[in-house]
């Protein structure tokens, strides 16, 4: 690791943050899709979905937050792809800078952009009647899980960003990730799902993350869900990081 790693990463982070602040539309579009889904589910389908005593918007928000991240990281892949395609990536690589700074700047930018989108979505949810009595510690836990989840998905996004042949290819990978919450406890309780689907829904990462977030928001005991959720996030993060870094090394050697 070069002695300039932190300085170089900071300079490059400043650069990609400018990309975001100068095209706020990417953040707005990132937030609009989950907000539209939230509106539709709460006001159209919500009345017909039985979530017990919990108001539907309270029930739904955790899943919507995960969808926000899943659609937000498509832009991470897009920004990285555009750097690769233009000459600027090669310019950076031919300069005396810490080489992994280029990737880390994109990853941290993704984190900042997604956090902004998440805040926007939560604010809309509050307008729609979302309420939580969660204390500071619970909110911090929610933030921590979401940050881990964003980092995990961002490192996944780095891989198509580095390898894609076209813009469409760079962002298409996020569609299955956006779809995954539908096959979980995010929108409806899993009890009514048929056998195999229910087994899948109850054992895929989104369900445990959603359940953990929901329990934190509603001040219920988080039980084992939070540990399963953290294990998934950290596991995906590590695997994606290793793959992304290998891909990166192959690209720049």
């Amino acid at each position, binding site marked *: 690791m*070069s002695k*300039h790693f932190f*300085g*170089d990463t900071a*300079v*490059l982070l400043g*650069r990609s943050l*400018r*990309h975001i602040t*100068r*095209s706020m539309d990417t953040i707005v579009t990132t937030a609009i899709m989950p907000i539209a889904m939230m509106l539709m589910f709460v006001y159209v389908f919500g009345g017909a979905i039985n979530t017990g005593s919990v108001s539907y918007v309270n029930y739904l928000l955790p899943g919507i937050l995960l969808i926000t991240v899943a659609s937000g990281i498509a832009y991470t892949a897009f920004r990285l792809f555009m750097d690769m395609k*233009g*000459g*600027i990536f*090669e*310019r*950076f*690589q*031919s*300069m*005396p*800078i810490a080489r992994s700074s280029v990737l880390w700047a994109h990853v941290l930018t993704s984190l900042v952009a997604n956090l902004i989108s998440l805040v926007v979505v939560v604010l809309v949810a509050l307008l729609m009647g979302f309420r939580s009595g969660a204390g500071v510690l619970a909110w911090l836990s929610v933030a921590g899980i979401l940050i881990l989840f964003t980092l995990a998905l961002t490192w996944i996004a780095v891989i198509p960003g580095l390898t894609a042949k076209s813009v469409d290819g760079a962002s298409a990978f996020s569609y299955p990730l956006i779809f995954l919450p539908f096959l979980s406890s995010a929108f409806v309780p899993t009890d009514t799902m048929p056998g195999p689907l229910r087994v899948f829904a109850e054992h895929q990462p989104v369900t445990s993350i959603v359940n953990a977030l929901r329990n934190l928001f509603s001040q219920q005991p988080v039980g084992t869900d939070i540990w399963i959720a953290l294990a998934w996030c950290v596991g995906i993060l590590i695997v994606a990081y290793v793959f992304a870094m290998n891909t990166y090394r192959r690209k*720049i*050697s």
Partner: protein
Amino acid sequence: MTTQQAPAIQVQGLEKSYKELRVLRGVDFDVARGSIFALLGSNGAGKTTAVKILSTLLKADAGMARVNGFDVAAQAADVRESISLTGQFAAVDEILSGRENLVLVARLRHLKNPGKIADDLLERFSLTDAGARKVSTYSGGMRRRLDIAMSLIGNPPVVFLDEPTTGLDPQARIEVWQAVRELAGRGTTVLLTTQYLDEAEQLADRIAILHEGRIIVNGTLAELKQLLPPAKVEYVEKQPTLEDVFLALVGADGKNRNAGTNA
């Protein structure tokens, strides 16, 4: 830097294949310090591959290459301190302004006073008025000038220009040529690749022709002219004539080069 007398660039027996395709099949050449060396060749001749190996972006399969006295494989970090690369596509950040692009590179080269460096270069490349504008509004020529300006930050002793004028109109081309001459005038070693014969003729102290992965000739323009059949020479001389007509008609002499934008 360290080695004063050795050539700025030394290449011996360089080979590179992409799977079955043998792009470089044993390339040898030297570039003297402070000179302009043109690597001439048609598309796919391997020019870009050679430049990428010299600028540490690609690893060679065989052979040796030294830049500013440093081995590109073993001392890649030192090579990167010694060079700058202007690739085939203008490596500028479209969303940032021209000045921000320059400041960015100055910071990444860990220089003091990045703002002053940026302002000086904007002036030197007649971009001061456009400095605060987003690069996406620049014309092709302005973009290229900014690109080259970014390459000069930190005064690297060796500069690689990979097809610096491809896709530019005649005026912009002349602007780039002026910039390259100025560079060499300040003692920088320039290796440029081009597929335009007249560009090599205009700029280079020495010209090497890369064909099917090998250097088939290497010499000064006068030496090369003796090798070429007369028909070829005639073709080379015809090109500038049409350009002269074009430039005379549109009335550009590189003076009002700051006016154009792509809007």
